[in-house]
């Protein structure tokens, strides 16, 4: 998981100035609004943000699940294992799914087909992509279920999704995603629908599988705790844009963007004394059909001035730390909390 030996490998995924715009009756919704990212094998990237920040749409656009059609316009470029995802034909793109990139969805209740057996979910992809026989596919499926920690895998193969608990179903979804040895795994809120004790198991599982297979992983989550412990680098999203990025440890230790700082402060910590008043962020995230002019966070930001409300800040590198960048005219200087106290 260390970033040092990773940096020499060729990137598996590059996105440049990616924009996803949905044309709706309410107007154009700019769900992803100019995001760039690079991911190398063995690396885990966290995408963190509140609901509506565009993190899930970004994940789907990277994979090509969302592509240009009559109601969607995508600009920018996504290069996945050497292929320009949005310039490819649909059929060619389908070949990438499963073998190059796979996704674990948020809700294990709805991402499995209720009228198909668990085994069928797994063998279907194996037979389509690897062109293997029924017998081989079944053997491999049992092996996959075993790898994701499901007890009695052979018996589970013949069960239907409703016969399993949420945690078990999410394990099946992970097994499906891993079936064809993808080089990139996009996990979109993989633990949000699960209980706390099960959440930990699933995150542990994803972590160990990533390390074993030298797979690149994008972990999309609103849970900063989960992101903090499980990712090498992080991009903090707000209203479709990256507001801050860098090594997870550095970003969380000393947030530079006021939004990152405020987000960290608004989470109740287990160490807090009872009845601690949290530092909440006033207001609510913007309507993406009518985003505010200038910095998207300016209406909720304590430090906003005339520049912030008129011009859109770009991501600028922070000197002295690797890959660290922040999109703010008034970044917090030493550490967020310090600046907050003086002001």
């Amino acid at each position, binding site marked *: 998981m260390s970033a040092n030996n990773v940096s020499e490998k060729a990137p598996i995924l590059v996105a440049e100035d990616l924009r996803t715009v949905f044309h709706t009756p309410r107007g154009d919704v700019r769900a992803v609004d100019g995001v760039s990212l690079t991911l190398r094998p063995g690396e885990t990237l966290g995408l963190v943000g509140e609901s509506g920040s565009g993190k899930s749409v970004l994940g789907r656009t990277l994979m090509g699940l969302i592509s240009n059609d009559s109601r969607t316009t995508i600009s920018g470029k996504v290069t996945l294992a050497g292929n320009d995802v949005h310039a490819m034909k649909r059929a060619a793109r389908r070949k990438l799914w499963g073998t190059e990139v796979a996704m674990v969805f948020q809700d294990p209740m709805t991402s499995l087909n209720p009228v198909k057996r668990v085994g069928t979910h797994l063998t279907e992809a194996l037979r389509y992509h690897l062109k293997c026989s029924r017998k081989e596919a079944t053997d491999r499926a049992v092996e996959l279920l075993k790898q994701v920690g499901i007890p009695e895998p052979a018996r589970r193969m013949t069960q239907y999704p409703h016969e399993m608990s949420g945690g078990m179903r999410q394990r099946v979804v992970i097994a499906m995603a891993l079936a064809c040895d993808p080089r990139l795994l996009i996990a979109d809120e993989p633990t949000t629908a699960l209980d706390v*004790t099960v959440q930990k198991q699933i995150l542990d599982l994803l972590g160990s599988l990533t390390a074993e297979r030298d797979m690149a992983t994008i972990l999309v989550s609103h849970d900063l705790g989960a992101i903090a412990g499980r990712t090498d680098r992080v991009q903090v999203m707000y209203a479709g844009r990256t507001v801050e990025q860098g090594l997870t440890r550095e970003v969380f230790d000393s947030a530079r963007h006021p939004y990152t700082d405020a987000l960290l402060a*608004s989470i109740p*910590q287990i160490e807090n004394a*009872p009845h601690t008043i949290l530092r909440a962020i006033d207001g609510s995230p913007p309507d993406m059909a009518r985003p505010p002019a200038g910095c998207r966070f300016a209406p909720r930001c304590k430090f906003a001035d005339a520049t912030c409300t008129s011009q859109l800040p770009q991501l600028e590198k922070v000197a002295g730390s690797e890959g660290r960048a922040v999109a703010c005219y008034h970044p917090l200087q030493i550490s967020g909390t310090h600046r907050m106290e003086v002001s």
Partner: protein
Amino acid sequence: MAGSGTAHLRSDDQRALTVENLVVEFPVSGGTVHAVSDLSIDLLPRETLGILGESGCGKSSAGRALMQLPSPTSGNVRLGDVELTGLKPKAMREARAKMQMIMQDPVSALNPRRKVKDLVAEGLEIWGFSGEDRAKFIDDLLRSVGLDPDVVRDRRPHELSGGQCQRVCIARSLAMDPDVLICDEPVSSLDVSVQAQVLNLLEETRERYDLSMIFIAHDVAVVKNISDRVMVMYLGKTCEVIPSDGMENKALHPYTKLLLTSVPSASDAAAAPSGPVKAVELPSPLNPPSGCRFRTRCPLATEQCAAEEPQLREMRPGQFVACHNVEA
């Protein structure tokens, strides 16, 4: 672990709410779901009790049973001095107005066809309003939950965000001047930044209106931040009752410890076990394990745990644990 008993009940005279030996069971085809089995709670005026547990542990069923929605299978619920169970429906409805509930999903808790001002006034419509100016009373309530009455008064729920809807729900519950507020996962459907706003609001509201509160949630940090005492539930039973101050270090029950270690933190990846992570199945509440209900997942389980149900016993002042095998 997951055991029962009433050792944790205090002897104070003044209590906002007393619950003794609450049992909630639902008949289903093929058996009975034991949602809550022998739960006892006492709540002092102006106190907040957090109820913590995973989904399916019966925490929401317990909250609803307190409201008599539906009435519990057996057990007593006393609001102040009034025994709610056994009251005739009309008298019960009247007594219950002093206990209000805030639901998990604020959007579906509000009638989508009514305006905010009518939603907040609904309780007053039913029970009558004794003050001078009802419109002003509603505006003041909306203001006290941080909403601008001129903006939201004539809106309907779909025109509000989730956080604003939850504020309307809080305003509505305050209209009846309640003594006890039962919050069932009030922030779990909200975004983190909005969650902090609502938690702060609940804290302020409790102080301003002298409320007692039961706060039901699955998030350890959230529960700890808002509560005076925390009750940990597992499969319908009480595991531990613990003062929230310093609970992250003082917890004794193996299940409470499991919950505390499951809180995601920055050191997770380093501490994660390598190799396949074994799945653990929760036992079914249709057929809960004998003796201690947590024994199937417990690292300390012995034969005694299968044979005998542990009772709550005091380990430290104010801290009660239902486990055969923990030492203070």
